[in-house]
């Protein structure tokens, strides 16, 4: 099924050519006509964030496509396409490597070559061994976090304890200073997507200080870390050993970047809307506009022009545990699907501007393989009559009482507001819902362990990269049921047919073919009503008055910090 090696190489070359062209045109559709990449340098970019950055160590960061702030400091083997806002922005492009990777016949061996002239911030050249060391560090138990795939995919990854205790990992080979080879234990056509993660950033072994490396990680990107007080304020300055000639993805216009975290979300919106002083050159990478900004948009054209809208592949859903009665009965699950009022749910999280109703588990974007379906049409406000009919068939003619578990974090998609909206809608169909709220950390631990998993709960799944694989496999693959916790297969589904289809789709290295396979699998799974998809979030974000070139990526739904200018 897999495409030939030559074809992949050809497409990579074509992609590279397209990129260079896009870059020359200056990021094409910028927000401001005045933007010119040649003269955009200068000024300070301020990033106002709600959540903290956490440990700024490439081994510990869990990013999609290299991250928003991390991509300014860490270059990776491949990266998301930073240079455009079209469907191509959901594609993977080479970063440190010369191409997105050459697979062998069955996509179990992936080979990369480094570009010439790459340097760390101290001027030493970047070698393939540094990339290997960076990947190996991410296995160290001292440096937790990061995506789980490396451990699962690389040969020997399961038992490897990282370079501090476990020596080196034999399944990563570096035959010379510019070549690196990854050997996987099973076919994975999505390996180039995984190689966008910060775990694939080079780390010089002689500069590694273990757990304190995060205070000053050695930069391979356009900026280096000047100060970092525990992720609350991170100050970045230019890396003199980086140049645009060796990096076709980042423009790095501002001279300095300051990341302020831990701010209140309404404070972030007010500061961005007012845009006074330093805030004129401010953006946010994690906070949606709130009601007070939304209410002003229709009457304030200037403010409206400073809002960008994008999509990140994510689905908020009601999860069933069919091991718990009465959810073992597909008719009960279907009745809940029919009864759901998606308009109330959408309103509970901020209205139609920041969420769109979902009937499919896959996000509604082509890169994921979106295949529209709505097997249990509930319309906007639910179909309680149909739900009652199904309940009667299932043996509950007088309705039933169930418990919905949720997190107690307000304003969150799994929080009490959404739970109340679900409770209200199901009540109309004769289903009495008791709410069981748990503090967030405990909530996650509870539903991610099959032994303590509730029968019905609110959950969400976000994309590690824009492809159907990381979206469906962890949730529906029977071999990914984890009895000790960290389990996302909430239906505890172990269907040999589904497992086989997942394997077949993973073998595909052509993203268009793979998308089709994932789409049809999702449409098949939807019939069983293991989940009730509620909504896909919409990213609507403000930026300061002086910020330019704010086109939105289809990979992460946001303007690109490495491309915007504040001058």
């Amino acid at each position, binding site marked *: 099924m897999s495409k030939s090696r030559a074809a992949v190489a050809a497409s990579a070359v074509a992609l590279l050519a397209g990129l260079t062209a896009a870059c020359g045109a200056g990021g094409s559709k910028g927000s401001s006509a005045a933007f010119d990449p040649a003269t955009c340098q200068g000024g300070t970019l301020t990033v106002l964030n709600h959540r903290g950055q956490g440990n700024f160590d490439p081994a510990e960061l869990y990013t999609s496509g290299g991250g928003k702030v991390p991509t300014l400091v860490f270059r990776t083997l491949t990266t998301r396409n930073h240079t455009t806002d079209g469907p191509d922005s959901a594609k993977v492009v080479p970063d440190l490597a010369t191409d997105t990777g050459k697979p062998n016949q069955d996509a179990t061996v992936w080979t990369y070559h480094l570009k010439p002239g790459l340097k760390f911030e101290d001027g030493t050249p970047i070698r393939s061994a540094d990339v290997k060391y960076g990947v190996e560090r991410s296995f160290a138990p001292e440096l937790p976090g990061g995506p789980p795939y490396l451990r699962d995919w690389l040969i020997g990854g399961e038992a490897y304890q990282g370079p501090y205790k476990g020596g080196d990992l034999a399944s990563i080979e570096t035959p010379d200073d510019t070549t690196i080879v990854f050997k996987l234990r099973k076919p994975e056509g999505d390996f180039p997507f995984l190689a966008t993660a910060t775990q694939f950033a080079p780390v010089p072994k002689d500069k590694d200080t273990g757990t304190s490396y995060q205070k000053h990680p050695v930069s391979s990107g356009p900026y280096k870390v000047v100060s970092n007080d525990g992720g609350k304020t991170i100050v970045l300055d230019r890396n003199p050993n980086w140049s645009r000639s060796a990096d076709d993805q980042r423009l790095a216009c501002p001279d300095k970047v300051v990341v302020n975290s831990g701010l209140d979300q*309404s404070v972030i919106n007010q500061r961005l809307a007012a845009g006074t002083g330093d805030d004129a050159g401010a953006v946010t990478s994690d906070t949606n506009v*709130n*009601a*007070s900004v*939304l*209410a002003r*948009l*229709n009457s304030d054209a200037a403010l409206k022009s400073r809002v960008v809208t994008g999509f990140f592949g994510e689905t908020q859903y009601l999860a069933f545990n069919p091991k718990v009665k009465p959810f073992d009965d597909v008719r009960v699950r279907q009745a809940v699907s029919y009864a759901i*009022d998606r*308009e*109330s749910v*959408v*309103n*509970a999280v*901020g*209205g*139609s*501007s*920041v969420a769109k109703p979902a009937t499919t588990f896959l996000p509604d974007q082509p890169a994921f393989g979106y295949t529209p379906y709505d097997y249990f049409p509930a319309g*906007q*406000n639910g179909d309680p009559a149909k739900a009652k009919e199904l309940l009667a068939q299932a043996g509950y003619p007088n309705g039933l009482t169930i418990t919905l578990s949720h997190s*107690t*974090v*307000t*304003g969150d998609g799994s929080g*009490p*507001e959404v*739970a*109340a*909206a679900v*409770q*209200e*809608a199901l009540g109309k169909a004769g289903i009495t819902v008791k*709410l*069981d*709220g*748990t*503090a967030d950390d405990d909530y996650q631990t509870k539903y991610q362990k099959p032994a303590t998993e509730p029968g019905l709960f609110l959950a969400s799944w976000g994309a590690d990269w824009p492809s159907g694989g990381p979206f469906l496999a962890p949730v529906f693959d029977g071999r990914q049921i984890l009895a000790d916790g960290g389990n996302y297969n909430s239906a505890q589904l172990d269907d040999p047919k589904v497992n086989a289809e997942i394997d077949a789709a993973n073998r595909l290295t052509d993203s268009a073919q793979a998308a089709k396979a994932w789409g049809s699998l999702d449409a098949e799974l939807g019939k069983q009503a293991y989940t009730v998809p509620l909504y896909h979030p919409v990213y609507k974000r403000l930026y300061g008055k002086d910020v330019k070139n704010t086109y939105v990526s289809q990979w992460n739904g946001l303007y690109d910090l490495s491309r915007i200018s504040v001058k």
Partner: protein
Amino acid sequence: MSETSTVPRSPDVDPRPPGRHQVWQRLRADRAALAALVAVALLVLIAAAAPLICALEGQNATTFHNSLIDSATGGVPIGPFGGASGAHWLGVEPGTGRDVLARLVTGAQVSLAVSLGATAVQITLGVVIGLAAGLGSRAVDTVLSRAMDLVIAFPSLVFAVALMAVVPGGFPRPLLLMLVIGVLGWGQTARIVRGQVFGLRGLDYVAAARLTGARRARVARREILPALAGPVITYGVLQLPANVTQEAGLSFLGVGVRPPTPSWGQMLASATDWFQADPSYVLLPATLLFVTVLAFTVLGESVRTALDPRAKSRLRAGLDRRRGKRNPEEAEA
């Protein structure tokens, strides 16, 4: 309030509080007290008649009205004053379209019930522990007094947040709130009671009861408890508004009663996101909370003055000839 402020030292002053009739007379003469009393009565009436008010308006606290809010602007109610109309007298809640009046009056039930219950728990614990400390042996007194110090010095809000978070979800939240606020707030009452008991213990009538051979429990019940009623009632009424705010605070922090049960604190918490887009939604619960706390505080102060045997000169100067003698402490009372 210092331990001995209401304990008379001179034996010619009757230590027992004024009679019921006398208290009522004093309160009636105090206009602020009357206004506060009317306000409190109204609030209790509103809370008690919440289902009736909802029925009268034809709404309830939980039904969503998606058509009354503008989803595209984040769920702001359509129309002025938070979407107030003939059907929804005080408008609807942003984000859900639930009726604000119904939620306010239902929320009043929770807020008042929790604060009354919590006060009852505080007073009961305070009186029992204070009596035990005041009448028990020196060792018992030392242990209990240190316990009081501990409870008073404890950062009760932090501890309450922690307690509310660890109790399993199945436990009824309003009851839990009552218990947590009550159990963390008996220290002051106990200390006052202990101080009072020390003062009363040495008085002639108590000594007489003891000399005739009455047991300690009987002395406590028959001789001391009635004399404690004044200060304890006073302290209870003053503690109520503090408990109203405590409940609102815990619900505001997200550890109080849980949705869809409305409470004022919870309404205020969700209103913080809306104060620009829908100001009336913030003003309504805030005003009610303000009025409640003010009314209880004024009432508490008035009851305290009316019950104070030595405060008569201020309220009913010169009317009571029998206790005309001025006490040096009275100037500050």
